[in-house]
């Protein structure tokens, strides 16, 4: 049985539901020799500001139980160099490009959206309103319902590209942010960004990260992220792109059953840069084994009716 793995986000069609998560795959081109970028559902590139940024001093990451903290501070080449230096190669490699954008002000998001709308080869915009690692902007929008609504509406007016606000998990009720995004005209929401967290070197009594706090990602957060995807799916109609600790096809499928149309994979790419093939193959196998013809029919199929017991002799 052939399976239809495509998923639709606004006007953008992804060949399959597996997307490289922003900040965990460079600008995509770094991996062009390792994986065939056209086989990924999409590539969400490292968060871009208008201008170049240096980011935080090292140490920028630290491993924690089943997870890692990062405080990169959105080092990046800025949107103009991105369009000049990276986008052509991504186009050539036939990558489906999702540009993750960050602004310190609402106007910056709007300007980024305008600039990228005119660029050739951008599939969608992911609005990073959830990076826990920078003080100004970004998360200020992502932690306020009005802020989220305003930035999404403003970007909506500035572009025809599909827009995907990326939500922070560091809020009391993430579903309300999905609803606000939907009302403001978003095509989808993606979640979760990282959890604000910290680690201390007890011998020196200093923070392990130069920025003191950072964002927790990896398998550790998966159960929380799955719950949040489940809540957002029930709260709204637009597609949810789920992520947080996905490291196997089963993990990706878990997010889809909970309500995700597509998934992103971040930290696990560091552990296994060849993961993309296993993930897509694993999802295809699962669909075939379960007689599901289209991957979008898997979304939100969680069965919450009471469970019965079966008896086998062993």
């Amino acid at each position, binding site marked *: 049985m052939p399976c239809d793995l495509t998923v639709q986000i606004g006007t953008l069609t992804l060949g399959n539901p597996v997307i490289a998560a922003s*900040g*965990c*795959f*460079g600008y995509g081109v*770094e*991996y062009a*020799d*390792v994986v065939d970028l056209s086989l990924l559902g999409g590539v969400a590139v*490292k968060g871009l500001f208008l201008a170049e940024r*240096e*980011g935080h001093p*090292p*140490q*920028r*990451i*630290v*491993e924690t*139980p*089943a*997870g*890692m903290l*990062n405080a*990169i501070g959105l*080092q990046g080449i800025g949107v103009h160099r991105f369009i000049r230096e990276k986008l052509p190669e991504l186009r050539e490699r036939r990558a489906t490009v999702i540009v993750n954008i960050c602004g310190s002000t609402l106007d910056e998001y709007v300007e980024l959206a305008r600039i990228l709308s005119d660029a050739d080869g951008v599939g969608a915009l992911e609005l990073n309103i959830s990076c826990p690692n920078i003080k100004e902007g970004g998360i200020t929008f992502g932690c306020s319902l009005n802020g989220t609504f305003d930035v999404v509406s403003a970007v909506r007016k500035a572009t025809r590209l599909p827009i995907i606000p990326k939500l922070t998990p560091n809020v009391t009720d993430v579903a309300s942010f999905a609803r606000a995004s939907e009302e403001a005209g978003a095509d989808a929401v993606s979640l979760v960004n990282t959890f604000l967290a910290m680690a201390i070197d007890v011998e020196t009594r200093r923070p392990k990260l130069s920025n003191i706090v950072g964002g927790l990602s*990896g*398998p*550790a957060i998966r159960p929380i992220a799955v719950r949040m995807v489940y809540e957002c799916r029930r709260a709204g109609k637009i597609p949810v792109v789920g992520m947080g600790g996905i490291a196997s096809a089963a993990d990706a499928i878990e997010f889809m059953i909970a309500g995700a149309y597509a998934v992103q994979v971040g*930290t696990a*790419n*560091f*552990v*296994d*840069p*060849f993961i993309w093939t296993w993930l897509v193959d694993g999802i295809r196998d699962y669909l075939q084994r379960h007689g599901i013809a289209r991957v979008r029919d898997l979304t939100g199929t969680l069965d919450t009716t009471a469970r019965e017991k079966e008896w086998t002799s062993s």
Partner: protein
Amino acid sequence: MPVDVEARVIANTRLSPDYNVISLAAPAIAAAAAPGQFVMVKLGHGSTPLLRRPFSVFEVLRTGRTVNGLTLLSKRIGVTTQMLFDAVEGDVVSCLGPLGRPYATIDPPAEAWMVAGGVGLAPFATLAEALCARGTSVTLFYGARTGRELFYLDWFRERGVRLVLATEDGSLGDRGRVTQPLERELQAAAGRDLMVYACGPEPMLAAVARVAATYHRASQVSVERVMGCGLGGCYSCVIPVRQDPTGRHYVRSCIAGPVFAGADVVWE
């Protein structure tokens, strides 16, 4: 193009209570690796440890002309190095590589002066072999806490490498830091063409780069930053380099390095 190999442990030799050399059946990586390149390794299942860790390729193992594998020189400081220390024949180590920008070799009459601190010896076995094959004369300045932590001395001697040793406790070679004999010899080497290679803790690298610059010598240093991916994906491993006469800029040491010109790095 890096490959990912589930490499069997061929042998594991403990050199001291903290150091070991582990031999891995990863011929594809070994055959492609240039001196100074590294591999990202992961042991065990589950999520402890979660991330891979970077290790220099120490030796390339050969039978005749056939490459069979590589070794890593490891110093036990945490979870992965403990697992490398404890690994036994037959265990599997996941090995991604070769990665990073290697040392640039030089040809005679230029001489190569390699400066190693502790486990920073690791890239110099393959570099010495490559240089010796070109007929380049090689000196190894090698420092450690104590003489018992100076390894592979005969290995280098056999290959014609001149050794200059230093230990903090004075048990072998000069007492003190390895940059002292380096500076002494640099003073005496006016007029000779030479390249300084260094690997070790960063303050040592900074000192080597400074001393080399003082005597107007080029240096290539291999830095050790905490790495999340080794492939340029995460921006964790950055190091500040000079951008223009006054500016500085963070570059990813996994792809722009780990080897840098000593003069390019902004030492903090």
